[in-house]
Structure formats: structure tokens, C-alpha cells
């Protein structure tokens, strides 16, 4: 119908004009000329239709007072003719309610209108994509796609960007942690680089492929969903347009005091008690390594040896108790990070040639002083119509990144010896403002006397480390993408695409003699020869250099057949094959004794076992280096087709076959083709559904199978060859990395999806309801075998998982000329479990499973989620403050027996560590030129573990817990605390039992105030003397806080596996968008 109307209008337009009064119709905001705008008179008669340049002409004789301008997708506008002067522009507002009509999904192999799509596609347009700000692409998708879970538990609380590893689409479909990420596709090819290299300002739209019908075209790597990124392109018939985007984001300084900690006084008192119990006797008497002890222990030792009076000791200790290392650390090592983002793009074109050029610069600081990331990118996109039947697309991106990592790290990373967390009363400066010496690796009393001034300074101060570190990683990536499209006839087209990627990363870590690492190593390998110090490791910097260079080629040939039949059917077929080849080479090398001024370096004897300085043992000077090389090759064949009848019924199918060099020939033979089938019924188009309020109602059903590529498996034993330098005999050593298993086959993910799309009441309400089931078969897991075979475990196809879920989205819109309101609610439910394992290990000891925090896959035979949280049965504390457990049905504090007798099958399962319900509620309110949008998100139905108090790790590693203050201290405490009493010596089994007890399991459910964005747009039509077409000023406030959480503890379950040292930092971005 539409087509006919437009044609008639065009004819009218052609015959009926007399060039007297001319206006131009443009899109509000972008000022793009609009073609096909219909102008009607007061009686509804068509007077004119705009041409390609947006121009409308009326006979001068026109007497109408009011003209009505209308175009599909835009709000109809009435204009009084008398108000218009010749040559004026008329701006039409985009009608948000009608946007769906123009949605074109990109699967990476084809562009497809949503009307024909049977699969589960989720399309994120440019506006929604840019609702959030940030350096990276993927974090902008958070809370926009039902079924897509952002799992930030592995991240620290100040981190903003996410990689594909943090994303779970519709639950996990594998039992291998490393391959659970979705596939990322950028401009038709799987993206091989670092996701953070992509500038989000270059992205036009994103399509998420969630079910088998959508994703199976990507075959063996699509089992976990696919995220297709489409970058911006030039536009036809548009004058050149310049977009400038500039913003500043501030990321708040972490607050180390927000969460409760074990306090300093408690720590010192504990050290005293341990000292009196003789805990440090061994360390203090160690004369082979002189291991570090904290200043308190050093003082107590002096006091014990009568070298320090009791009064002096008490005075010093009480002054220590007033220190708090967090103060210094927060002051010198953290900051409010400033991130600058600038981007400019030029685009335009005509019928023959469309172009885009863009350049971006991102300068990001981390909240850790000394850590920065800069990214510069340049991108071009050109489309040429070479011949009427021949099109060519040329795309290129150059990205350069520089990452500086000079910070010693987060507060909790700092240690004074291997595995011993820095004491909380450390200070960075002495009273006279000079740099203090912190204890590191060796006892301070040893450092003070050793070498009597002949050696390099052996003291440590993290601030000095920060100032002298020079650790830089630079990368550059080139991506060239060429596409040729040849139209043979009306129905048949051929596409040839080629992509070349060249990614280079160079890291350089220069550790000068100012760094402790270098001084320490030089000192260790110094020797005394006739009273003169000699150096086996020459004085100078230690420089580690590494390079990784990846080159990849991909080539694809595809035929597309599209035919519209006279009987009302539409057939779309495509078939193609594709080949990929990625080669990567790397090397790591160390230079020692480098003079930074002349870059001269020394050769070093890495073979001789030297006697180290002053009784510190013997050893070789450590080497550091490696050579690596990998080649990944894929060959794939695929096909896809759909048939639509009378715009009502669609059926679709796809198939794909992959082969790769990763697995060896025998494995390729076992590869079953992946396929999908789907159907769609557009109910609203049926005559019996002719309700005026029903704009759209369609039902979709699909079923299909996609795969997971696990490249750690092999049919033959795989050896990993280790460097000769790592062996005491200086010969290469081989380790059996994977025992071969010739019975292996590939993981397959079967998915069924049922979806309903609806739009009601003149598009005021719209949404989608989808339900799915996901069955993953032949999952590869480690399987315990008889250790007598020489293997403790082998990999085998031994698991099956079942998942199901529901994805709901609902949008309501009210739009008037001045005020508009749009509200979107997303809800996802997802539940998955291990439904079958080929072996039973419910009789394996349950300790490790119960200690797990749900961050890695835990196998079980009990139909539980693989990311489950488990615990031992426990009966609280007894009258002595000991945790009571159960062994063989009896209450006991015999922890050895509890641990030995509690099997995996006996553990209590609390639930999943991944939310089972999650979603978001987003509201956007527009008033004139002002828009405000806020989002609230929630995650429900999951659990986490607080880092429990372990006296073993407290005593040995100095890892304190806020629970220390809540511990059982006197009889009766057991009624109100579940934190066991302190005991000496620590009983590691008692600690393990407590850590594995339900006392540390907490509910993770929470609701967050995600963000608010505010923007104000001004354009030329409103403000005539504006020097540019339009300007948008915006502010984005991110991570505004937790509105509600199930646990009363000061913990955020979604960062650092629920045990972040500080609450999530807040961000504010302010920026401006200009169109010239």
C-alpha cells in the first residue's frame, strides 16, 4: 500500500508543479533533508511531496492557511503558510513511537528487516547505545538487552569497561570457564583484537543474537550468543556533516574507610599475643633467608633480648596504633580519575560515493595513581557505486593504545613478604617528611647491618616504587576491510569480503636501580672479593621487553538470492564459504645491567649457581624470556534461507559446517553440521485480528544447534615444551599438557525459542516476550581417573546442562510536541543446571566445593547450577567459641573427621552465584529541548560468600577481617555471634570448616540506581544565530548507589566476588556534541 501511495505522490509531484514557492523539509536536530514528505491542504488534498533534496514547491496561488506536513517515522506537523518565507526550512521531529518500522538487523552475514526475522535478535540503536558514556563499547550495553547479564564479580569496584568475558547471554552453555563468552563480530567478521580498542563513537548500532536461529550462522563459536557491532558509514544524498563529541568523565576516588576493617590496635594486640606464643620464633631464627617480620615483631624481639626497655616498647607500640596505612595509601596512591574523550567525524556522500572519516582520542586515568590508558583511533569508510551493478566498500581503522601501569596496585595487593599482606600501621613518610623504609622481603635488622654500606640501598618504599616505575604497554592495530558486491540480475548478488588485521603489542618494563626488585636482585648476587664488592649481576636497570604480533586474514564469498514472487511470496537465500587464518608470534626478553643513558647492557651468567650474598643461599640469576607462535585456521561453509508468504508467514533455516586446525583431522570428521529452523506468524495481518488497537502481533518459534569451540582438547597427547633455561640441566623439558583422548567430540548447544512481539494502541505500548530452553550436550569436563594410569584427570565429553529462561521487555510511550515520556522495563529470568555428568563424584570430599565462592564452575551430580554456593552443615558455636559441625550424624568439633567424612553429596546447596532474575527500568522524559533519563536495575535470586575470618591466614598472611571484632570472646557470646574464638595455634581445619560454613553465605539480591543522564539540545531552527547546526550538552551520572540489598553487611556482591575493599566508585561525565 505504502509503495503505491508514494508512487502516486511522486507522479503528482512531477506533473503538478509550478515553481513558485519553495521550502525545505529537514529532520529536527540532524538537519538532514527529508525526502517523501507529504504536504496536505486543509481538506486533506495532497499539494506537494518533497524530493531528494527535501524541497517542496507550491503554486503561488495557494490560498490555504495551514499546511500539514507528514512523513512516516516523523510527527505530523501543521504550519501556517503565512508564517513561512520562501526558502525557509520546516523541521520535523522524529516519532519515537514509529522507530521499529525501520529496524534493520545485521547478523554479520546479512541485513534483514525485523519483520522477516524468526530468531531472537535484540537491536540497540545509536541513541540507546549513546545513552551511557564511556571508553569502551560493551559497557554501554549494560541493562539494555534482556537475557544479557553483566557479571562484574571478577572486577574491582572502580572498573568501568567490560570485556566479552564479563558477559553471559542467556546463561552459560559450557562447563569450561574460559569459553563462556559470547562471540564479538565487528563489521561482518569475528573481532580478533582487544575489545577496548574499539572506539564506541564509531559504532552505529549493535545487534545481539540470542537464540540458535539468530546465532547458528556463526556456527562453532556461537553457543554463547553473538554480539554484532556495526560501525558508522557514509550516507547517501547528504551534505557533509561534521560531528564533534567531547566529554570529561570523573571517576571518584575510592573510599578505603567506607567498609569496616580489622582495626590497627587489634592487629598489634594480635601480633603481641602471637609473639608471646612463640609464633615468630622460627622466622626470627631463620638465618638462611632472614625473612621479613613487621616492625612490631622487631620491637618485641628487641625487648625480649633486653635491647629495648618495656616503657620504650609500649610507647612505640601505642604510637603505631595511631597509624593507619589506609590514610597514606588513599592519599598517595588513589585519585579521582579524569577521562577525556574527544571524537570528530565527517560524513556525507552522493549516489556514487559515500564517505566517512573519523578520529578519536581517549585519555583515561585509572583511580590508581600511575596507571593510565590512552587510545587514538582513525577510521575511514568509503562506499563506491563503481558500476550500476558493482559496489565496493573500503574500510580501515587504525588504533593506537598506550597503557601505563606504574602503580604498585590496590591496597590489598601490597605485601611485605611473599603472601604477607602489608601491616596496617605502615607509614610512607618519617616524621621529618623523608621517605620511610617499609619492611620488604628481609628483616629490617638484617638490612640495616648487612653489607655495611657496600651494597645498594636495600630498603623499600612503595611511593618510591611508584615514582620510579616505568611499565608501558603500547599497541597498534590496523584493520582493513574490503567488500565487493556484484549484482548479476534482479535476484542474484555476489559478495566478496576480505579483512586484514594487524595487531602489534609491545611491552616494556624498565626497572631502574630505584626499584626494589632491581636493587634486591643485584644485592643478592653481589659478592665480596678481598674486601671489594663484586657484582655477578651488574648494576643497572633490568628491562623486560615483549612483543606480540598478530596478523589475520579472512576471506568470504557469498551468494545472495532474493526473489519476490507474483503470488505474494518472498524468498531469500544465501550461501557462502569463509576462511580465516590468524598467526601470532611473540617474544619476551630481558636485558640486565642496562645503562639507561647509553642503552648499553651487560651479558649475565644465568647458568652458574652463585653463592648469594651473606648466607642467602645459592641460586642462578633468574632468566626471563620466551618465544611463542600460534596459527589458528578455520574453514566454514554456511547457508541460510527464508520464505515469507503474504507478509504473514515466514519460515527460515540455516546450516553451517566448520573445520579448524586446532583439533586435528580426526576431530574435524566428527563435526556435525550446525543448523536451525524457525517460523513466524504475523497474526496482526490476519483479517480475523483486525482490531484497530492492535498494531502488531507476531509469534516466532525457532529451534537449532550451535557449538562451543574448546581448543584445549586433543585426540593425541599434547606436550608443552618449556624453555631449557627453566631446567637445572639447561635442556628443554616437555610436560604433558593434555593427555590425548581420541573419543572426544564437540560441544553442542540446542536452543528452542518462542517469542511474541506486540505493539498496541497506536504503538503506544510495545514489547517482546520470549521463552527459551537451552540444552548443552557433550560438554567437556575434567574427569577423575585412576591415578595409577599416570593421569589424575582427563578431559572427556561427560556433561549435559539444561537451562531455561524468559526475557521480557515492555515499552510505553507518550509523546507530544513538548513533553514526551518513554518507559522501558526489562526482565530476565534464567536458570540453568548441570543435568547430567557421566561420572559420580558425590563421594569425593566436599571441602573444596564448599570453600568455593561461585566464581568458577563447580561440578556436581545434584542438578545444581555450576556456579553454585555450597556449605557444610553446621551447628553454630559451642561454649568455647568453637564452630560445631557434623560428622557421621554426630555434632562434633573434630574438624579432621568433619572434613574427611563430608562428601560433595552431603553439602547444603544455597543457590546460584549468578542472578536468576535481573532487569532494569529505564525512563526518559523529554521536555522541549531537555531530556532526562534514569535507569534502575536489579539482580535477584543469587548468593555470595563474604571472605570469612581464617585465623590461619590472619596469623600467617596478615589477612584481617572485619569479623575479627565480632569474634567469640567469652562464654555466652555464642548466642549472638557466629565468628569463632581466636585460638593459638591456629587450626587450619577449623578455619576451613568455618570458611565452608553457612555463616559466610549471604544473599546477594540488590536494586541499584544505575545512572541518570541529562541532556539539552539546541538547534539552528530554534536559535537562528547559533554558529552550528545543533549542539547537545549532556551530563551522565553513573553508579549512583545501591537502593536496596538483601544483606545488611557492608559488601557489594557484584564486585570482587562480593569482597571489594571499597564501594563502587561513582562517575560523572559532562560533555558536548556539536553538529556543524
Amino acid at each position, binding site marked *: 500500500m505504502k509503495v503505491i501511495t508514494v508512487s502516486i505522490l511522486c507522479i503528482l509531484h512531477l506533473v503538478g508543479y509550478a515553481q513558485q514557492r519553495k521550502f525545505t523539509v529537514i529532520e529536527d536536530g540532524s538537519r538532514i533533508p527529508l525526502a517523501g514528505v507529504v504536504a496536505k491542504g486543509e481538506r486533506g488534498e495532497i499539494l506537494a511531496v518533497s524530493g531528494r533534496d527535501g524541497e517542496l514547491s507550491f503554486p503561488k496561488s495557494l490560498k490555504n492557511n495551514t499546511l500539514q506536513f507528514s512523513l512516516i517515522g516523523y510527527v505530523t506537523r501543521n504550519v501556517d503558510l503565512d508564517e513561512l518565507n520562501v526558502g525557509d526550512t520546516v523541521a520535523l521531529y522524529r516519532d519515537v513511537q514509529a522507530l521499529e518500522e525501520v529496524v534493520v538487523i545485521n547478523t554479520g552475514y546479512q541485513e534483514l528487516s525485523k519483520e522477516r526475522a524468526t530468531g531472537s535478535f535484540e537491536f540497540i540503536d545509536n541513541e540507546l547505545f549513546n545513552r551511557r558514556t564511556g571508553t569502551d563499547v560493551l559497557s554501554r550495553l549494560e541493562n539494555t538487552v534482556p537475557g544479557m547479564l553483566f557479571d562484574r564479580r571478577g572486577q574491582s569496584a572502580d572498573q568501568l569497561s567490560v570485556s566479552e568475558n564479563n558477559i553471559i547471554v542467556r546463561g552459560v552453555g559450557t562447563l569450561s570457564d574460559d569459553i563462556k563468552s559470547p562471540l564479538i563480530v565487528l563489521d561482518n567478521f569475528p573481532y580478533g583484537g582487544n575489545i577496548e580498542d574499539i572506539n564506541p563513537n564509531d559504532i552505529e548500532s549493535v545487534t545481539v543474537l540470542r537464540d540458535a536461529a539468530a546465532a547458528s550462522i556463526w556456527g562453532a563459536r556461537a553457543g554463547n550468543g553473538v554480539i554484532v557491532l556495526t560501525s558508522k558509514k557514509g550516507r547517501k544524498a547528504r551534505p557533509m556533516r561534521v560531528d564533534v563529541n567531547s566529554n570529561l568523565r570523573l571517576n571518584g576516588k575510592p573510599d578505603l574507610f567506607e567498609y569496616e576493617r580489622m582495626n590497627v590496635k587489634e592487629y598489634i594486640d594480635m601480633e603481641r599475643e602471637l609473639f608471646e606464643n612463640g609464633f615468630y*620464633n*622460627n622466622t626470627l631464627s*631463620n638465618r638462611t633467608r632472614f625473612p621479613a617480620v613487621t616492625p612490631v615483631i622487631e620491637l618485641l624481639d628487641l625487648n625480649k633480648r633486653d635491647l629495648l626497655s618495656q616503657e620504650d616498647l609500649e610507647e612505640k607500640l601505642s604510637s603505631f596504633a595511631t597509624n593507619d596505612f589506609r590514610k597514606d595509601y588513599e592519599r598517595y596512591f588513589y585519585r579521582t580519575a579524569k577521562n577525556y574523550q574527544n571524537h570528530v567525524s565527517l560524513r556525507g556522500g552522493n549516489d556514487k560515493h559515500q564517505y566517512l572519516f573519523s578520529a578519536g582520542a581517549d585519555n583515561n586515568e585509572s583511580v590508581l595513581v600511575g596507571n593510565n590508558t590512552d587510545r587514538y583511533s582513525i577510521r575511514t569508510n568509503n562506499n563506491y557505486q563503481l558500476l550500476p551493478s558493482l559496489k565496493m566498500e573500503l574500510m580501515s581503522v587504525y588504533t593506537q593504545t598506550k597503557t601505563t601501569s606504574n602503580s604498585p596496585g590496590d591496597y590489598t595487593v601490597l605485601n611485605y613478604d611473599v603472601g604477607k599482606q602489608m601491616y596496617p600501621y605502615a607509614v610512607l613518610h618519617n616524621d621529618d617528611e623523608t621517605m620511610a623504609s617499609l619492611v620488604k622481603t628481609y628483616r629490617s635488622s638484617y638490612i640495616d647491618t648487612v653489607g655495611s654500606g657496600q651494597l645498594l640501598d636495600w630498603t623499600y618504599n612503595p611511593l618510591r616504587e611508584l615514582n620510579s616505575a616505568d611499565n608501558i604497554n603500547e599497541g597498534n592495530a590496523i584493520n582493513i576491510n574490503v567488500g565487493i558486491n556484484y549484482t548479476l540480475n534482479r535476484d542474484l548478488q555476489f559478495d566478496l569480503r576480505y579483512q586484514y588485521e594487524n595487531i602489534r603489542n609491545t611491552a616494556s618494563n624498565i626497572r631502574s636501580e630505584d626499584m626494589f626488585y632491581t636493587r634486591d636482585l643485584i644485592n643478592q648476587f653481589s659478592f665480596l672479593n678481598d674486601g671489594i664488592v663484586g657484582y655477578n649481576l651488574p648494576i643497572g636497570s633490568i628491562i623486560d621487553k615483549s612483543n606480540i604480533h598478530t596478523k589475520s586474514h579472512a576471506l568470504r564469498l557469498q551468494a545472495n538470492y532474493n526473489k519476490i514472487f507474483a503470488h505474494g511470496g518472498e524468498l531469500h537465500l544465501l550461501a557462502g564459504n569463509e576462511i580465516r587464518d590468524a598467526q601470532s608470534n611473540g617474544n619476551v626478553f630481558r636485558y640486565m645491567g642496562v645503562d639507561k643513558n647509553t642503552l648499553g647492557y651487560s651479558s649475565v651468567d644465568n647458568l652458574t649457581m652463585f653463592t648469594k650474598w651473606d648466607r642467602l643461599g645459592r641460586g642462578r640469576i633468574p632468566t626471563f624470556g620466551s618465544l611463542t607462535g600460534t596459527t589458528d585456521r578455520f574453514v566454514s561453509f554456511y547457508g541460510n534461507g527464508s520464505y515469507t508468504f503474504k507478509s504473514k508467514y515466514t519460515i527460515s533455516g540455516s546450516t553451517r559446517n566448520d573445520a*579448524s*586446525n586446532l583439533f586435528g583431522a580426526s576431530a574435524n570428521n566428527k563435526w556435525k553440521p550446525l543448523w536451525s529452523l524457525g517460523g513466524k506468524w504475523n497474526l496482526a495481518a490476519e483479517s480475523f485480528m483486525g482490531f484497530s488497537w492492535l498494531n502488531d502481533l507476531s509469534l516466532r518459534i525457532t529451534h537449532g544447534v550451535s557449538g562451543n569451540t574448546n581448543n584445549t582438547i586433543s585426540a593425541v597427547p599434547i*606436550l608443552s615444551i618449556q624453555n631449557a633455561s627453566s631446567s637445572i640441566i639447561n635442556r628443554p623439558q*616437555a610436560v604433558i599438557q593434555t593427555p590425548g583422548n581420541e573419543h572426544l567430540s564437540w560441544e553442542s548447544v540446542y536452543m528452542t525459542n518462542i517469542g511474541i512481539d506486540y505493539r498496541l494502541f497506536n504503538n503506544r505500548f510495545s514489547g517482546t516476550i520470549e521463552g527459551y530452553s537451552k540444552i548443552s550436550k557433550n560438554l567437556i569436563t575434567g574427569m577423575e581417573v585412576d*591415578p595409577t594410569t599416570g593421569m589424575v584427570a582427563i578431559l572427556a565429553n561427560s556433561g549435559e546442562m539444561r537451562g531455561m529462561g524468559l526475557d521480557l521487555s515492555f515499552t510505553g510511550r507518550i509523546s507530544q510536541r513538548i513533553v514526551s515520556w518513554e518507559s522501558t522495563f526489562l526482565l530476565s529470568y534464567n536458570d540453568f543446571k548441570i543435568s547430567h555428568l557421566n561420572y559420580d563424584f558425590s563421594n569425593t570430599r566436599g571441602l573444596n566445593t564448599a570453600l568455593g565462592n561461585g566464581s568458577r564452575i563447580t561440578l556436581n551430580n545434584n542438578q545444581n547450577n555450576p556456579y553454585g554456593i555450597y556449605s557444610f552443615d553446621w551447628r553454630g558455636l559451642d561454649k568455647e567459641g568453637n564452630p560445631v559441625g557434623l560428622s557421621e550424624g554426630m555434632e562434633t568439633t573434630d574438624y579432621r573427621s568433619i572434613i574427611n567424612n563430608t562428601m560433595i553429596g552431603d553439602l547444603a546447596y544455597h543457590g546460584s552465584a549468578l542472578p536468576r532474575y535481573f532487569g532494569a527500568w529505564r525512563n526518559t522524559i523529554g521536555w522541549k529541548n531537555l531530556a532526562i533519563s534514569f535507569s534502575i536495575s536489579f539482580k535477584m535470586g543469587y548468593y555470595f560468600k563474604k571472605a570469612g575470618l581464617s585465623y590461619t591466614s590472619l596469623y600467617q598472611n596478615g589477612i584481617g577481617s572485619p569479623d575479627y571484632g565480632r569474634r567469640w570472646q567469652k562464654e555466652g557470646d555464642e548466642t549472638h555471634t557466629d565468628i569463632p574464638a581466636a585460638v593459638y*595455634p591456629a587450626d587450619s581445619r577449623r578455619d576451613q570448616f568455618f570458611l565452608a560454613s553457612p555463616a559466610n553465605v549471604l544473599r546477594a539480591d540488590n536494586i541499584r540506581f544505575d545512572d541518570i543522564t541529562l541532556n539539552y539540545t539546541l538547534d539552528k531552527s530554534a536559535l537562528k544565530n547559533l554558529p552550528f547546526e545543533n549542539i547537545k550538552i549532556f551530563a551522565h551520572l553513573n553508579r549512583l548507589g545501591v537502593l536496596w540489598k538483601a544483606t545488611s553487611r557492608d559488601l557489594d556482591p557484584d564486585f570482587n566476588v562480593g569482597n571489594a575493599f571499597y564501594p563502587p566508585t561513582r562517575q560523572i561525565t559532562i560533555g558536548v556534541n556539536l553538529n556543524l
Partner: protein
Amino acid sequence: MRILYLFFVLFCSCDSYLDAKSDLTLSTLDSKEAAEALLDGIDRMNKGSVVLQNASDEYYIRDEVYNAISNPFNLESYIWFEGTQTDEDWNSLYRAIYTANLVIDNLERAGLKEGESDFLKYRANASFYRAHAYSHLLQIYTDVYDDHNAANMSGIVIREDSDFSKKSFVSSLKDSYVYVIDDLQSNQKYLDQIAALKTRPSIQSSLALLARIYLYKGDYQKAYDLTTELVSGDGSELLDYNELDTLENIPFEIFNREVIFYSSTVVANNVYQSTASVSRQFYESYDDRDLRKTLYFQMLPNGEIGFKGSYNGSLSNLFNGIAWDEVYLIRAESAARTGNEHEALDILNLLKKRRWKNECYEPYEIANIDDVLDAVLNERKLQLFFRGNRFSDVKRYNKEGRGIVLRRVVNGQEIILEPNDPGYIWSIPKRVKDLAGL
């Protein structure tokens, strides 16, 4: 030009395109070099039992250290806990056996032709590692060999090849010994006379290992005959401890002249110097003129005696391989036990000359010795200190009625291992039994 190649593959689809090796640092067992690199994996191939050292009475652990031990293996092996489920030794020794079997099974894939000298040499090398691991398993998991009853006593699991789908079963003690001895003997002649590296097998190490096995088997004549093939007889293979610096923290170098085949404990958390205190009784049994008293031990600041005399060149893992001192002592013991007391004493003197301070050396005279065998066994105890032999030695001495009782005191509680207690034989871990269906 790669794009042309890709076009070629895209349209012609050749199989060799997918045969490219995906990771250059990975390899399959398809070359001599790969086989050699596997056998040179000293962290797996040159490892001996740690449980035998942990269980020894040569040391004790102070309560405060004992209470801080979290690894059940270290705790349980220290107190000879019967129900121990620890399988560290089992796993690591059978892993070495698997690796050796894998090499043997893949020699042809690695490009070696059956019957050719390289083929025989690689097979012999791999067999030696396998036999070495079996010899440790025999000491840990079986009773002292009894000629009359060996066919009915349980031995160890013999894995003849690398196919892990084959079921494990326990062979009789007799069959186990026969297998290991045959394996060593039949491959011996293909080994190098002297290995280029002390971590690799040689005819010397094969003979020495065989002598050690015969000694534990109680076949003293065979043990004696084997050492005849080995030793020069003048003690020139031995280090002269007078040339070493007693003040050194680590007086002995790794791969020193006395070492024939290098092997060390897998992990030795219990017997690190900072953990293990040497029994004073042991320490005092060294004469003050004996250099070993200062080369093996040092006084620690906490008043304990620490061991520093490992042939490992470090204080971390302990040497438990085969050295010339042990070969001489095997010869002395088998000589004494086969009625050749004079020769036994001569050997002790060869050793004593190189162990005592030069100026204090005076040879043992047969007239002054009550029992030559006792003297030899005492010397064995002193010389092979912390080499992982003591526990097995006590086990076999007690079979002949020497009545040595092992004691531990843990948190005030005394734990006793009576002579011929079943606790001398470590039971196969339950987990292994379950998984293997033993």
C-alpha cells in the same frame, strides 16, 4: 601474497591447510627431541618418594610447627597415620611411569625404527625411569620381600603401557620384583656407559639401582656381584670431605662427583631445614672427628639442629638419588652378610678415610669390632642421612629381629611404631582404590 593463497584454499579446499600446527610451543610426541624433552622433565622423571623421608625417625617436628601444618599428607605421613588418604607419591610416581610408557609406545611415531640403536637406547632410557619409580613404590607400598611367600604377598600395580583405558590390578610381590628386575636387566646394555647428564640413566645407574633393589629383596649375593661390576674398589669415586668447607650453608653441590643418578623428593615441606629438627641422638652418634658432623648439620639460632648436607645443592628438596657412597655401602653390607667381613671392613675404611678429618683418620681393625655387620649398618645410617633410606632400612632390619621402635611425641602424646607394625606398609589410598576398582 597470503590473500592469493587464501583464495586458492577457498576455492580448492586443501586438507593440508588445516594440518598446520596451532601452537608452536606445543608438540605431539612425533620426534626424537620431543621424546628426549619428556624424559628430561626432571621435575617429574627424577623424583623419588617423599613419604619415606617424612616417616623417618631421623628428624622431629616441634609442636608449634606441627600444629601449623595444614597439608594432611605432611601431617599424616609424619605420625604414620594408618588411614592416610594421601596419594602424592602414588600420583607422581605413576605419572613418571606413564610418561616413560608414553615415550616407549610412541617411539615409532617419533621416527625411530624398531631394533635400531636409537630406538633401543630411548626405550632403555625410558625403562630405567620406569624401574626407578617402581623401586620407590615397592619400598612404600609393599612388605619386606620374603622368598618363601612372595608369590602370595601383594606387590604393586604394574602398568605395561600408556593406554589409560586398561584396568589396574595389583601384582604379587614376586611378580612385581620380577618385572622390575627384568625390565632393568633386559635394557641395561643399550644404555650409555656413563650419562652425559647425571639426571639421565646410564649402565652405571642401572647396575646401582639393581644392586639397591637386590639389597632390599635380601638377595645379597646378587647385590654384591653387581657392585663388583661397578666400583673401582679404591674409593676414587668418593668425595673427600676434607676438601669441603664445613662453614658453608650448603656444602655439597648438586651433581657432585659422587652422584650417579640424580633424583630428589617431590615436595619436602616437613623436612625443610626450618621445619625438621634433627634428633639429637642421631647427631650425637657422629664422632667429633667425623667431618659429617659439621658438613651435614648446623646449629640453628633456636637451639635446634638443622640438616644441611643434601647432595641437592640447595636446602629445598632433598636428594634421594643414587650415589657412589650408597653403592660402596651396599657392597659392604652384602659382603658382611655373605661372610666376607674383611672386605666389608676395608670398604668402611675407604669411606672413613674420606669422611673423617685427615689428621684423625685411623682405620677400623677387625679385632676391635664386635660385629662387622652392625658397624656397616651404623655407617649406612650415618652416611646416608636424610636420603630417604632410613625408614625402609628400619623396616627390613626389624624383620631380622633388630627390634627398632620408632617414636614421635606430638603435643605431649607419644606415638609409637612397633617393629613389624603394618604401619610400615603404606596402604593404597582409598581414592585410588575406588577409582581403579582395586
